[in-house]
């Protein structure tokens, strides 16, 4: 059962990849048509995590670390084993445990980049060091372009990008949906491949969403609010969550449906459209100033001719 489902998903992604090529032409159109400045991914891929299936084995955490060539963070265990306290510059993926104060309610949660449909990080990044792939929608980081301003950390609503504070040549570290593995032909990222219970699965976003809604439908009441987190949050994310406890308790913030780039650029876009307004303001200012300047210049020269002091600008 498990195998076949996974194979089905792989098949689905294979199809997705083909579809991606097919929709390549449509992409140019969609980028110019969206009201947001980020290109909408033509074939977005993502993850679906289900708290009710996660057994907290952390196989995905170690798999992620080794797949991404990171040094395991074993600080908290005095070097004995990998034991990150939170996402950090050596940890792109973490399993956390939530326990209610009286211990009656508990849940694991996997945290990594949400691969937002309209990512705040990429929208704020001054030189496109963080950029959304126009096909897969994966947000990747490019060290050639990053100036290390850490604006991405300031704006990410999920607190995902981490910075190497202890290095001279610091990198911005975050889950890039194992794009290096996928590019090399792997069928899925390291974390989903490692997960023994399919608590986290990989696929095309629409299929994952369909799957998640199916789970809600087949057992109503099992999941919090009978809804998928990430379907609409902050403009939608490519990583989706199903949870049996309220989302905020496992650290998924309550967010408006409007994406942050849309909120932030609503007026900005109008003001700076083709630089028309700044240009007009400049022209008006220059006109007014020139009129005043002519008068000033005339007076100043009169004074100088009368033996007065040189005009001080």
């Amino acid at each position: 059962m498990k195998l076949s489902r996974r194979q089905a998903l792989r098949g689905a992604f294979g199809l997705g990849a083909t579809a991606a090529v097919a929709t390549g032409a449509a992409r140019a159109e969609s980028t110019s048509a969206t009201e947001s400045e980020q290109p909408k991914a033509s074939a977005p891929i993502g993850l679906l995590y289900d708290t009710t299936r996660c057994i907290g084995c952390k196989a995905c955490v170690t798999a992620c670390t080794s797949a991404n060539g990171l040094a395991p963070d074993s600080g908290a265990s005095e070097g004995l084993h990998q034991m990150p306290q939170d996402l950090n510059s050596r940890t792109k993926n973490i399993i956390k445990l939530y326990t209610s104060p009286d211990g009656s309610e508990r849940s694991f949660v996997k945290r990594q980049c949400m691969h937002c449909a309209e990512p705040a990080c990429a929208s704020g990044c001054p030189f496109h060091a963080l950029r959304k792939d126009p096909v897969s929608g994966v947000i990747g980081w490019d060290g050639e372009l990053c100036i290390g301003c850490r604006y991405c950390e300031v704006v990410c609503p999920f607190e995902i990008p981490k910075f190497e504070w202890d290095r001279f040549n610091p990198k911005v570290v975050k889950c890039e949906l194992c794009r290096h593995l996928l590019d090399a032909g792997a069928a899925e990222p390291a974390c989903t491949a490692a997960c023994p219970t399919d608590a986290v699965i990989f696929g095309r976003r629409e299929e994952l969403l369909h799957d998640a809604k199916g789970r809600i439908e087949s057992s109503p009441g099992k999941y919090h609010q009978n809804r998928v987190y990430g379907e609409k949050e902050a403009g939608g994310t490519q990583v989706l969550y199903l949870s049996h406890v309220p989302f905020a308790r496992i650290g998924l913030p309550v967010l408006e449906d409007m994406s942050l780039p849309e909120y932030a650029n609503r007026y900005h876009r109008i003001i700076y459209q083709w630089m028309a307004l700044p240009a007009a303001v400049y022209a008006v200012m220059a006109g007014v100033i020139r009129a005043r300047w002519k008068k000033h210049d005339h007076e100043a020269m009169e004074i100088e001719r009368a033996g007065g002091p040189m005009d001080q600008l």
Partner: protein
Amino acid sequence: MNAHTTGVARGERAPAPASQVRIRPAYDANASGPSVVNMWQRGVPVDEKLWTPSVIALLVVAAVGIVLAIYRLTGNLGSVSGMTDVYAWGVWKTFNVMTLTALGTGGLSIGAAAWIFGRKDFHVVMRTALVMSLMFYLTGLLALGIDVGRPWNFYHVLMPWKWNVHSSLLEVAVCMPLYATLFLALENLPMLGERLWYYGSNETRARLTALRRPFRGAYPFLIAGAYMLPAMHQSSLGALLLLAGPKVHPLWQTPALPLLYLMQAGICGFGFTIVTLMTSCLVWQRPLDLKVIGALGDWMSRLILVWLGVRFVDLYVRGEVGRVFTFDRYSTLFLIENAMVFVPAVILRSRKFARTPRIVFNMAVMTCIGGMAYRFIPTTVSYDPGHQFSYFPALPELLVMLGLIALAIVGFNLAAKLFAVLPAPFDSWVEAVEWLEVERHQAEAKSHGNAAHD
């Protein structure tokens, strides 16, 4: 080429011996009647030794900061700062750049009042504002350079095809250096030209005179740009926080942030120019022109009232007025922050108070503190990513911050002595020029004497 050539040290000038040279111009600045002419008429250099004990003390503070900054640039960010992944921006960005450049907006606000709104009486304080702006912006840029983790990639700023034009940070990164190193620098150039002219040989003078015409021709277009750019990036500094969305408390998080940030910069520009002028007059015992100071205070007070209006209308429109009076930590901060600018605005509406130096000074200081609070709070204090973390700058981080501030003050101090920055009555200018002529004559005589010996 200064007083040392004649053996008369800076700060030791007696009034020029009138019999020796008479260059007092036939022109009488007060001929048109005292009603139109302010007491402050021209910029005149401060006659004081360059390296006073306070300058040296400030240089020591600056040197500590610079050494630590170099240490940071050859090492990493974590070991010198209190920044973390949760509070990824520290005081270098949030204070030196986002807060202090507001104080350095005098070049924009006073310039715009003078040239766009026709306040001719503000021309005389323009240079003070311009030097101040230059110092805050240059040290702000240094802070940015120290703060970015991968500064070697910053050259992309010169390649427009690599820009993310929708990023407010890009706007700041492009606009701010452009403004400081080109527009502000050019605006400050006449001061240098003037010094060169007065100290220069006839050849230098001819060359400067030739340059003067094209410069004056381009001047109105230059300063229009010099008002456009800071208006853009000062508002973009506010826009930076928009993208942080719900992490910034709703009393501060608003689509009006860019406008409020820009206006607050304008207010601080007036406020800090008043503070600088009055402090300089006090320190160097120069006469104060209460008419001009009062007018600056009047503009500041009006702007504050408009700003408060915008702020409360915005709260009302967003339906967040209720939060103002919850008296929790944020509401208290909000109320204090607004009171810090509201009180000065009201007090300066009174004509009597607006002509009382002590009150104007205190009100300007209060406004600057309130304005700085407004610019700083949403970046750090009411920026809450919802963790149990807090941020406080580490000692080296603070020392770099202070070092940069000290550097700015030293820069202003030296500029005020070397160039005709601070405004003074016409007579002081005549006196200064007369002394210059005495020095030139003596230097000439001396060199003739030397020639005779050879």
